[in-house]
């Protein structure tokens, strides 16, 4: 039986009717039209569906939509403030940290969660925590460089 739920996505409340077996990924893409969150393996092994829930990196393919009520959900569409790109988005462009772009939303949101947790993570920590996000194009080096540039920038600002 469907349930009426309210999801807070990128600061906007949405009243929705969802079945318990619908994942957050399905609801974001199919009911809210937020296609930035990608369906990759759909089994929690590739990280393409990563969203931020209360600032932490979650796999939206392994989370029930009904379980996400009462939480702050952020997708890639909500990261840029106004017309300005988020520093991580800009760094990915500046460092060439993407090619086809399919993994990029998940990469950027996982990176954001890592920086939420620790503003100045070491490169080893970044590499270990990003390991659940798979990219089949760039080879990761430029992705890690992009993230480290933002981490170093916040160190310089501090």
């Amino acid at each position, binding site marked *: *039986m469907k*349930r009426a739920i309210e999801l807070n996505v990128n600061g906007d409340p949405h009243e929705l009717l969802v*079945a*318990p*077996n*619908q*994942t957050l990924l*399905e609801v974001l893409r199919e009911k809210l039209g937020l296609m930035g969150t990608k369906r990759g393996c*759909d*089994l*929690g*092994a590739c*990280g393409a569906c*990563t969203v931020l829930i209360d600032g*932490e*990196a*979650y*796999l939206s393919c*392994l*989370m*029930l939509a*009904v*379980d996400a009520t009462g939480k702050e959900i952020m997708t890639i569409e909500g990261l840029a403030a106004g017309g300005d790109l988020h520093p991580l988005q800009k760094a990915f462009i500046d460092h060439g940290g993407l090619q086809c772009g399919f993994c990029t939303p998940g990469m950027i949101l*996982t990176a954001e*969660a*890592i920086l939420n947790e620790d503003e100045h993570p070491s490169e080893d920590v970044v590499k*270990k*925590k*990003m*390991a*659940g*996000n798979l990219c089949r194009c760039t080879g990761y080096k430029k992705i890690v460089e992009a993230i480290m540039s933002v981490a170093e920038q916040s160190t310089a600002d501090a």
Partner: protein
Amino acid sequence: MRLPKFEYFEPKDIKEAVSILKNEPEARILAGGTDLLVNMKHRVECPPVVVNIKRIADLDYIRQDNGDIRIGALVPLKRLYMTAAVKDSLPGLARAASAVGSYHHQVMGTVGGNICQQNRCKFFNQSQWWRSSRPTCFKAGGEICHVVNKKEICYSTYCGDLAPALLALNAGIKLAGDGGEREIPIEKLFTGNGKAPLSLTGAEMVTEIMIPGASIKGVLNYMKFANRDSIDFPIVGTAFWASAAEKQYRVAFTAVDRRPVRGKNIEFFLQGRELNEDNIKAACDLAAAEASPVKTSVYSPSHKRKMMGLLLRGAVEKTLNMK
């Protein structure tokens, strides 16, 4: 991949959860979801009822209690290695938690869920389409085992990372059920039956993990060998606990049997002995006989047996270097 349909409950307290579990014997408990929902997408588990216990308040604590450490079943794995009480006093347990899956799995997965994860097998953890090319196996509800040609025995392997560390720490598990609460040694939680790996009965659920103060005084190390170090289940995992002053040792292995196993012969041999080269070598030589791995993963049983000794040596040497 859509999830199969199910009835969904969100109990607010343990009493309500137990009462749902009592009325719905086929129900499955949902915590982090990183194990159950994958199995449901693969259609190897299709419970008619899913009980989401994450709304239960006060099950995500880490408390010091008369020298013991008590960990609520809903503590996320990430918090286990980020909390000073665990990181400082039990770095080996923190290491085991940080060895689980990827960063996302550590954010979402819970301590209780990790311990209670399903056994794994290369013929079971596959999509419905993949499995359709051969008869359904015991574990998925069929009448055959594709690994070992024996009747009505499922040889799937327990692959959790936390369980061996907790076995080596002599941890206790608190269960809540229809008959009230009870605490059992973690060893008693595992049945050794691949089809039903947990000994939970009477609408029971895991609510707490207790690590005794005596174990916290020792040193624990966990070594894991996996295909990809950063994300995969262990091919073999080894936990080694040592109390140098009393020359007491405990050893546990994961991913080599139908349940996480203690290395009882190794422990018996090492008891009261110094960790010198001769004793370490003899102990590592005993490792291969401590479990009965079968070919439930792409790695051969003989490779797993060799890795058990090698990982034990690594864990012992790490322990010696920490002193």
